């Protein structure tokens, strides 16, 4: 049981917040506690990164892959908690519930990356989704919040129903819910229609989480309607978990060509639609949502390459996406007044109002566009190299054209931050010293990940080594 300590710890932390939700409201106390608990959890995950084991009748596997991802998830969780100092988007009396749900969601995602049986996989996914459904709904004083929460819920429920059907078909094929049994059975039978369809349907729940076409319709509305911190969480932590499970599941197919073609279509559709839709967005969070859709397409290229480099590139991509998207949301949180939504033009004069944030934002956006020397470039380089090893030059060219399209809207945001002058009534942005330090740290990570990514790549390769072809 010793290998299960980080998860148990997270469960206890959730229990603490449950107890607090019964006590009197105190936003300050809740934030401090969440900060400490998530920091300790992150440390625990890092300490436990080397642990290995199999639990619960072989349905739960603690390996390098799951442990690296747990560190990533906790890092994202911790970063999001750092943004909760002024949780304006949520009513004060609901703050402890907010932390309860977000901790539970993290727990669910941690379980998700370790599950090696279809049934717990489904349960963990649902646990994380339910937490997020409520978290999106927690937005204070925003009429469209409820609409987006319901939209999110309905699409999510549909995706998970479809996925359950796919699981049933897979179970029927392999006569077992254990992934290890399916791994023996599936690769030889991938050309049977029922297996292929079952497989594709099983992935839909994770396509939904990743906001991959055609399961992306919730993303812009949910990002727009959710509290900023929840949107940040959805864009970072929950994406990383989705990438992890997709890697695990798709490796079961043993490199099926039909599946690869199907994923290629989804990937191209996702990045093209995401980028083209992002070009016309005015609201910053909607823009980030569509950029997430596009990035789901890019990371899919790594996953569908179905080789060892593809897996490690996707792991690296998850890390880089988490950092860059987080920086964007940090700016959203800081630049918004009382938790309201902000449009691109609200960033005007950011370079004077908060120079460090503006610099971080610029690097993050260039990183999202894949321009060196940023971590985003390294991620794209790895993904494209993996695709090229499978001989997909044309797919890389399509992706690069998409990168150029995406650059257009990223540049518009940079222009607003660096060029447009702030209007007279724009409130100054108070960036606390600790957040300033965080911003500098993230800037360094983004640049170092671009010019000296050696250790991060090794980490990704270690993680990738425990699942493989």
């Amino acid at each position: 049981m010793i290998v299960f300590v980080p998860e148990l710890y997270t469960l206890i932390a959730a229990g603490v917040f449950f107890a607090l939700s019964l006590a009197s409201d105190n936003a300050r106390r809740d934030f401090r506690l969440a900060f400490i608990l998530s920091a300790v959890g992150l440390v625990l995950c890092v300490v436990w990164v080397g642990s290995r084991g199999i639990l619960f009748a072989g349905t739960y596997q603690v390996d390098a892959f799951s442990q690296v991802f747990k560190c990533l998830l906790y890092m994202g969780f911790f970063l999001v908690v750092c943004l909760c100092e002024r949780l304006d988007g949520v009513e004060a009396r609901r703050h402890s519930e907010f932390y309860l749900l977000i901790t539970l969601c993290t727990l669910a995602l941690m379980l998700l990356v370790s599950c090696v049986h279809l049934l717990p996989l489904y349960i963990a996914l649902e646990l994380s989704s339910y937490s997020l459904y409520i978290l999106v709904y927690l937005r204070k004083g925003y009429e469209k919040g409820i609409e987006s929460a319901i939209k999110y819920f309905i699409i999510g429920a549909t995706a998970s129903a479809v996925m359950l059907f796919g699981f049933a078909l897979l179970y029927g094929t392999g006569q077992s819910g254990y992934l290890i049994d399916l791994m023996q059975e599936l690769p030889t039978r991938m050309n049977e229609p029922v297996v292929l369809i079952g497989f594709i349907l099983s992935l839909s729940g994770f396509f939904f989480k990743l906001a991959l076409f055609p399961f992306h319709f919730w993303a812009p509305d949910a990002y727009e309607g959710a509290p900023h911190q929840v949107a940040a969480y959805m864009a970072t932590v929950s994406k990383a978990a989705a990438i992890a499970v997709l890697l695990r599941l798709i490796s079961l197919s043993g490199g099926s060509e039909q599946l690869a073609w199907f994923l290629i279509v989804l990937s191209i559709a996702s990045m093209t639609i995401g980028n083209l839709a992002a070009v016309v967005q005015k609201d910053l969070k909607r823009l980030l949502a569509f950029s997430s859709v596009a990035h789901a397409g890019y990371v899919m290229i790594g996953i569908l390459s179905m080789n060892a480099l593809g897996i490690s590139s996707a792991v690296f991509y998850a890390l880089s996406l988490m950092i860059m998207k987080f920086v964007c949301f940090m700016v959203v949180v800081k630049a918004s007044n009382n938790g309201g939504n902000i449009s691109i033009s609200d960033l005007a004069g950011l370079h004077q109002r908060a120079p460090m944030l503006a610099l971080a934002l610029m690097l993050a956006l260039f990183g999202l566009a894949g321009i060196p020397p940023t971590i985003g470039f390294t991620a794209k380089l790895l993904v494209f190299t993996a695709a090229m090893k499978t001989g997909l030059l044309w797919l890389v060219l399509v992706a690069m054209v998409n990168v150029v399209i995406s650059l257009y809207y990223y540049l518009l945001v940079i222009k607003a931050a660096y060029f447009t002058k702030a209007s007279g009534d724009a409130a100054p942005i108070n960036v606390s010293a600790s957040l300033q330090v965080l911003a500098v740290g993230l800037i360094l990570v983004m640049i170092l990940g671009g010019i000296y990514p050696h250790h991060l790549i090794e980490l990704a390769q270690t993680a990738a080594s425990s699942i493989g072809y």
Partner: protein
Amino acid sequence: MLELHAAQFPFLSLILIACVIGLILVLLLPEDQKSVIKWVSAASGFVTLLLSIYVFAAYDKTLSGFQFVEQIDWIPALGITYLNGVDGFSVPLLLLTGLVYFTGVLTMWELETRVKEFFALFIMLVTGVFGMFMALDLFFIFIWYDVSLFPMYLLIIVWGSTRREYAAMKLMLYLLFGSALILPGLIYLVAESGLGTFSLPMLANMAEFTPFQQKLAFLLFFIGFGILAGVWPFHTWSPVGHVAAPTAVSMLHAGVLMKIGAFGILRVGIFLCPEGWQFWAPLMGFLATIGIIYGALAGLRQTDLKYVIGYSSVSHMGIVVLGLATVSVDGMNGAVFQMFAHGVMTALFFSSVGYIYDRTHTKAIADLGGLARQMPVASGYFVVAALTGIGVPCLASFWAELMVFIAAFKVYPVYGVVAVSALVVSALFILRVVQHAIFGPANEKFADLPDVSFGLGIPRMILVAAIVIFGLMPFLMYDTIQTSAMFLISGLP
């Protein structure tokens, strides 16, 4: 077999370090210390200039292969090494970058708005350019290439003039579309080689690419880098961008950045895909010739001083590409010499126009006139640049153009004739500008404007000196380029 001659002392890295230290110091200095920031930038520029002069002088002209080579494992997992080195093609361009960096900083001495950010971005751009000219690892080549591009957007949009938002966006999208072709090309070659290395000398020596692979990759590189080199019909970003950019950025941009494009074709395309080069050379020659004529004719119709120079750049860069297209020693020689000569000349052009614009607040040729009487020194610099542009003997670009045209006449007689006749047109349009703006009746409005002071004249004097030195002693440049060019051509199948 490309040999690597290890460096006794890491002079090349020292150039980069001088830039990076300058950058860090500028970033650390407070915003209001404007003159300190300028001095720091100038000092960093001066050190890099001295180092690049040293490398130029110490480069052994008898050896082929790469010299001053430094090598450190960088990302072993992907076969990426920090590998720097120079050959006869890159040594002149390092010198050019040093010259333009130092003189560019001096030219912007009067800048008052957002000084810190300007010089930080400017130094970042220069670092990328230096890195690009010395990197021998495909990963680093691409990194430096993009590092030198993305500061352009902010430099133009914040400090620029005419239609800057449009120009900056257009320039950025064009150039990054170029890198969208280059990156797949690079990864394609690395993946197809099966060697698991990004090292350019290793790939050039050991990889056996099929003719199809070479043709495909070379086309990607030619278009990708060609966009930055201003190859017709991908040049449209260039005049607009030059006009909108602030003076030092125009200098750097037309003077050095466009050379990165041509240099990329040479370093990556020609070194790795020689058969692709031979296959596509006629197309390169054709596009280059159109570019030469088009630039000259378009220049004839412009009313804005900077547009004139912008179009002359398109024309002159066409000569570089035409040289590369001849697949001959003379052509390569001329092409690289032309890169250097054109770089220094355009820097001088923009530098003198920048001065005139700062004083008169107009770039319209019709509004100027008779400046020779009001600002004799400033006009003098402009006229020297103009004469170099026309290709007057004893100035640097004469020799470069001569070599290219000799080579072109041998290989593509038709293109050669057409290109030479375009020279007449370009002489016409440059002289027209000189006649209207510098001579002719004086505009009384500008009677009281001060002429270039000695301090502000220093950068222009350095550039004039470079033009004259290499115009009088072209062998300094030829001998450097010659060995590398001969080696490259003799290795062709």
